[in-house]
């Protein structure tokens, strides 16, 4: 608890909330723009459309956002050369997990904000069907899990490399790979953690090139994918911790 309180004090005037707010505003503007012209068919499929588009946007935005969060949280120590001093005062484990806690908190707020935003958009645009609560909860769950996995990965990199260009560069690459992987055949997508927003999504689309009509449909929930992402997070946390305690700052 003490280490978490210390982490909170460190970021007090660092405007972390702006990172979350900026991400949500970006997603909101995009969705307001993309849902601005909806006919009756679109309004019937409104929730499906949102649940289809949001993972695509998340593939672009959230890898970089988690990279920025992890970099900010670690860079405070790199800039002040405070890791060695901190280690004298607090246990390695406490430092590492306090930084995880902090990132998970912001990632959680962002994901919750996304769901609230979708609900708001649904009511604002007047979607004809009622909100699919179960699928919205599933969306919240898998988006949170993937974002936590990406944050853990980025935190590992940001703690290991003093030069934050490397983790940020990898987050940009990840975003690119994640987005491109969505256009690849199913099995290939599953090899890239950044594309898991799309892999775990339970909405797919049929697009008729002649009539230019989009039809969305539900797919079974991807529990296997959830297991993969949880396993990835556990492995990355263990690996990150191991590398962090061995690292000489």
């Amino acid at each position, binding site marked *: 608890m003490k280490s978490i309180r210390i982490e909170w004090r460190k970021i007090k005037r660092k405007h972390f909330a702006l990172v979350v707010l*900026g991400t949500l505003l970006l997603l909101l*503007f995009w969705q307001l723009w993309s849902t601005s012209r909806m006919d009756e068919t679109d309004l019937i499929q409104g929730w499906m459309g949102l649940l289809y588009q949001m993972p695509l946007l998340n593939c672009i935005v959230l890898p970089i956002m988690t990279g920025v969060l992890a970099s900010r949280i670690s860079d405070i120590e790199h800039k002040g050369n405070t890791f060695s001093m901190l280690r004298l005062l607090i246990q390695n484990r406490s430092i590492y997990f306090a930084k995880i806690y902090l990132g998970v908190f912001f990632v959680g707020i962002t994901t919750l904000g996304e769901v609230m935003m979708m609900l708001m958009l649904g009511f604002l645009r007047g979607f004809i069907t009622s909100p699919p609560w179960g699928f919205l909860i599933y969306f919240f769950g898998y988006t949170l899990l993937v974002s936590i996995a990406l944050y853990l990965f980025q935190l590992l990199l940001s703690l290991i490399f003093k030069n934050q260009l490397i983790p940020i*560069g990898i987050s940009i690459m990840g975003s690119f790979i994640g987005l491109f992987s969505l256009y690849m055949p199913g099995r290939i997508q599953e090899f890239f953690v950044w594309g898991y927003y799309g892999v775990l999504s339970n909405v797919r689309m049929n697009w008729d090139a002649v009539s230019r009509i989009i039809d969305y449909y539900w797919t079974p929930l991807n529990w296997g994918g959830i297991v993969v992402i949880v396993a990835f997070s556990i492995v990355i946390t263990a690996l990150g911790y191991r590398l962090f305690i061995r690292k000489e700052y």
Partner: protein
Amino acid sequence: MQIQIKTEWIKIKKSPIWLIFFLIPLIPAVMGTFNYLQNLEILTDGWYSLWSQHTIFMGYFFLPPMIGAYSAYLWRLEHFNHNWNRIFTMPQPPLHLYLAKLFIVSLMVFLTQCWVGLLFFISGKLIGIIQPFPAEMLVWLLMATLGGIVIASIQLCLSMVIRSFSIPIGIALMGGVFSLAFLARGWGLIFPYALLAMGMNGNTPQSLDYGNIFFFLISCCFFECISFIFAWQWLKRIDVQAE
């Protein structure tokens, strides 16, 4: 001024910036080519179709943060160890520092576009596109370089003012995403982050042609001037107390 340019070059010479430089454009080259091969029945326009696949997301989502990373990296050292104090006590106008960084990042943007072009050419040859290579793509790469330099000048201002390394990169991503909305409305020329994608001419809703190339150049100059004036005024007014 030459000394500052040399100094900035030393900073990036053996830095991990080259890792980003080489690897990021490789992703769309490999994946875009793969996508092209998967959709040969729809993509029938040879080099142009391949170009659309290579650049489909590059100009909006990835090159702006990449340029943001170049710019943030060059300012990073100044934000460390009270280096701002040293800058203001050096017998050189601080504005030269901004201009030297702009020169180096512009060079990086130019090299990035050359690398993108080279990868595109190699991909096309490897998959056996038989039509002659369209020379206008060289013009698009040049225009994309100019659009990229506009982003660089703005990102340099942001990274100069904001001491965080990563926040300006996040802003670059936001700029890139918003550029899509501006291009869709045909307002690409009034939004600096849209100029790169527009210049690249790859699958954008608003494309660059010989009719609007003049306005494109005017727009580039305008945003360059705005950034320059901002940097000049900011560096003139800021004092060591900013530390």
